[in-house]
């Protein structure tokens, strides 16, 4: 049974190998790079299917299928202190493996077409392969250390890929922003990791009973109480959740994700829709036993602990927040980015209220239709000659019929159109569990509002892009090379804009938009199919997905659909979906916008609110003011201290030393030498004088002796008397 586990490590290593070979390669063989990357992903996909089938097969032992393998890597400290690296195969891993490899494969194929004209084709595919390796490493890791290493590789590759067109200052700034914000999150993850190791003595999740996520360790940690009355497990869970917040772009650390759209569209699709952002949610799912440790006895089947409540609340806030901003955006990719953030919020709510299965189901479905939407927008931009502002598009139905159909399916799945689309089922699960959540009803209401807004801005986007008449190519073609990239910053086209950017050199081709080639549309169709079919594996009637994850068998029973709780939520969510769609159509579908410069409908209605939302609640500006300013001030303070206080002190000491030396020299030279010279001179004089005494005449000596004798006698006599 665990045969496949032994080769599980092959899945991340293959793309890693491919990335290595591509990187080492000197000549730009595009064909070699593409085949290598796609080949490694295909092999990975096959292996993942193998692993998936292994988990499906009946196995002994209760609970979900779990097989662990690993090896000792570094010995540190005593003989038994080993840093182990290991990988685990359980349902969670299997699903993620299949999803990541399949979506990755499709996006690789799509990006072959998309990046055809780019000079750095090689470098692009090297980074993509590296990213895949990192992502797969995260998925299979059974050891928090291996997990953290791969997590960092993923962060690195996201930086590289966002800043792929590094000659564009905005891209470079965005990459840096992404990297730093995720780093802040990772700090929490690192602290959590260290604390976990300190508590349990091992970083392995599952280690035949000794792992840190196993019952023994969790209970032990749950009982210990740290400062503030929180259990240790809660604290560690929250710290790890901080990592997830950073990576998945939850509220405080979400600022980097919209800017990450600077990267090429496949990148956005792969990283900022399907996989990487999902890694945060996967992390929470993986660490769920830790977070759920110490929960009161399960009466509603879903443990409620402080950690999970925090996750839920963060998720809820992010969902409503991001959704509201998305409504007021003009850039096609930016709208999708905010929708991703909002959907990630939904996943967090799912895990918080419903446990791992609910969150993961929405993650899987979202991965497919969000990838679909991003690739669709990619082919739209490709078609409109790198035009990203929805106000300059319109009426693309006629020009890109395939893209329109596929995009529409993706939009309906995202909006949660009832019954047929996966989005509906997964979002329904979340809302259902949120409704039954014993914590508080507010997340449920926020969830509903967010769902409404989602449906509204998606229809707005589709209406603006595909309906009405084509507004691009005429209006503001001001400067010859102006390529309207990311209008949000009002960026001035940099003078040295060389023609690396593929969207650019395509612009002045022929004026009218055109359909994308087959290599781009085929993956779209496959994704669209999955966007529809995936929903059925997790419906309340046949909760296969839930059973698969928890290990029990799932029976097909339409009756469950009509139990009181589920029916109410089903109906509610479909009502929400419909209201969102109709609102969107009314505002944007019927009253088509005439030209690019026209004011938006909402803007006309609520100019201040619209402006607020358009500028992302001025979060960037707030950060700019607070964190950056503080940082600058700290830097300035350190510089000041270093220069004046410490520098001054050093200067003072040196001056003191020099002064001391000078004083020593002076005293030495004048006082001591002078003194000795004078003494020597005196002695010489004395010597000279006394030498005169020795005349050599013996008689004088005798006379002196005589006198001395006299003096001696007198002294003796008088001495005695006195």
């Amino acid at each position: 049974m665990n045969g496949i586990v032994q080769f599980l490590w092959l899945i991340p290593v293959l793309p890693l190998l491919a990335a290595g070979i591509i990187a080492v390669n000197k000549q730009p063989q595009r064909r070699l790079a593409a085949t290598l990357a796609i080949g490694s992903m295909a092999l990975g996909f096959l292996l993942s299917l193998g692993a998936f089938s292994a988990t499906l097969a009946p196995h002994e032992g209760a609970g979900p299928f779990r097989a662990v393998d690993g090896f000792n890597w570094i010995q540190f400290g005593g003989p038994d202190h080993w840093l182990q690296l290991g990988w685990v195969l359980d349902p969670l891993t299997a699903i993620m493996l299949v999803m990541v490899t399949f979506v990755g494969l499709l996006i690789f194929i799509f990006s072959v077409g998309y990046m055809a004209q780019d000079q750095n084709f090689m470098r692009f595919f090297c980074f993509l392969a590296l990213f895949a390796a990192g992502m797969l490493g995260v998925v299979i890791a059974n050891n928090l250390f291996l997990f953290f290493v791969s997590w960092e590789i993923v962060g690195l590759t996201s930086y590289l890929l966002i800043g792929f067109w590094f000659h564009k200052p905005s891209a470079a700034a965005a990459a840096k922003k992404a990297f730093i914000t995720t780093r802040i999150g990772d700090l929490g993850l690192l602290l959590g990791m260290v604390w976990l190791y300190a508590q349990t003595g091992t970083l392995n999740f599952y280690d035949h009973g000794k792992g840190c996520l196993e019952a023994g360790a969790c209970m032990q940690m749950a009982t210990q109480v740290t400062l503030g009355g929180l259990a240790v497990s809660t604290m560690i869970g929250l710290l790890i959740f901080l990592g997830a917040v950073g990576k998945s772009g939850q509220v405080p650390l979400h600022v980097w994700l919209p800017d990450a759209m600077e990267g090429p569209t496949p990148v956005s699709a792969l990283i900022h829709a399907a996989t990487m952002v999902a890694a945060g949610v996967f992390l929470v799912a993986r660490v769920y036993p830790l977070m759920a440790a110490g929960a009161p006895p399960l009466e509603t089947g879903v443990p409620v602990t402080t950690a999970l409540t925090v996750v839920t609340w963060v998720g809820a806030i992010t969902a409503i927040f991001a959704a509201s901003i998305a409504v007021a955006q003009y850039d096609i990719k930016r709208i999708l980015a905010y929708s991703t953030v909002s959907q990630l919020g939904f996943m967090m709510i799912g895990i918080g209220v419903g446990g791992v299965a609910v969150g993961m189901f929405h993650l899987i479905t979202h991965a497919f239709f969000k990838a679909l939407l991003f690739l669709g927008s990619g082919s739209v931009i490709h078609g409109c000659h790198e035009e990203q502002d929805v106000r300059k598009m319109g009426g693309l139905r006629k020009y890109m019929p395939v893209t329109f159909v596929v995009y529409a399916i993706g939009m309906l799945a995202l909006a949660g159109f009832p019954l047929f689309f996966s989005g509906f089922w997964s979002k329904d699960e979340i809302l259902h569990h949120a409704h039954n959540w014993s914590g508080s009803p507010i997340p449920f209401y926020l969830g509903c509002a967010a769902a409404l807004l989602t449906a509204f801005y998606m229809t707005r986007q589709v209406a603006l892009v595909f309906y009405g008449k084509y507004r691009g190519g005429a209006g503001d073609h001001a400067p010859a090379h102006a390529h309207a990239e990311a209008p949000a910053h009002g960026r001035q086209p940099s003078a040295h804009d060389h023609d690396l950017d593929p969207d650019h050199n395509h612009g002045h081709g022929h004026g009218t938009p055109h359909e994308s080639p087959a290599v781009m549309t085929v993956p779209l169709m496959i994704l669209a199919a999955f966007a529809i079919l995936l929903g059925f594996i997790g419906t309340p009637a046949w909760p296969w997905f839930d059973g698969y994850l928890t290990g029990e068998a799932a029976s097909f029973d339409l009756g469950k659909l009509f139990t009181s709780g589920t029916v109410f939520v089903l109906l509610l969510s479909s009502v929400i979906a419909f209201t969102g769609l109709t609102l969107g159509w009314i505002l944007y579908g019927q009253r088509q916008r005439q030209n690019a410069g026209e004011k938006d409908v909402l803007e006309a209605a609520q100019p201040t609110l619209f402006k607020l939302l358009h500028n992302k609640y001025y979060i960037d500006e707030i950060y700019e003011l607070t964190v950056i300013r503080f940082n600058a001030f700290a830097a300035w303070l350190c510089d000041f201290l270093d220069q004046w206080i410490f520098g001054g002190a050093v200067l003072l000491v040196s001056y003191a030393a020099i002064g001391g030396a000078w004083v020593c020299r002076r005293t030495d030279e004048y006082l001591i030498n002078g003194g000795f010279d004078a003494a020597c001179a005196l002695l010489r004089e004395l010597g000279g004088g006394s030498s005169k005494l020795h005349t050599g005449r013996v008689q004088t000596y005798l006379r002196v002796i005589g006198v001395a004798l006299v003096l001696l006698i007198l002294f003796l006599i008088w001495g005695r008397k006195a």
Partner: protein
Amino acid sequence: MNPLTICLLISALLFATGFAGAVTRRHAILVLVGIELMLNAANLNLIAFWRFGPHPEALTGFIFVLFSMALAAAEAAVGLSLVIAIYRHQQTSNLDEVRELKG
């Protein structure tokens, strides 16, 4: 004037003559003679004190004189050989001329 003071006076006189000779006479040998006289004066003094002293039986002064005589003889021998050596070296034993301190 008990005999002791007489003897002491005699030895003082003898010492004075010896000293005068040693200090004023020009000839080297006479200086030595003067020294011999002074030594004799000292011996006389010793014997006087021994004779009139409180413990004559202790014989200290007596023995002291014997030793001083022996040493005086040795000193005279060496002194005279020095004078002879100087004479041979500088062909004069006139102390005023024998002033060369160099070796």
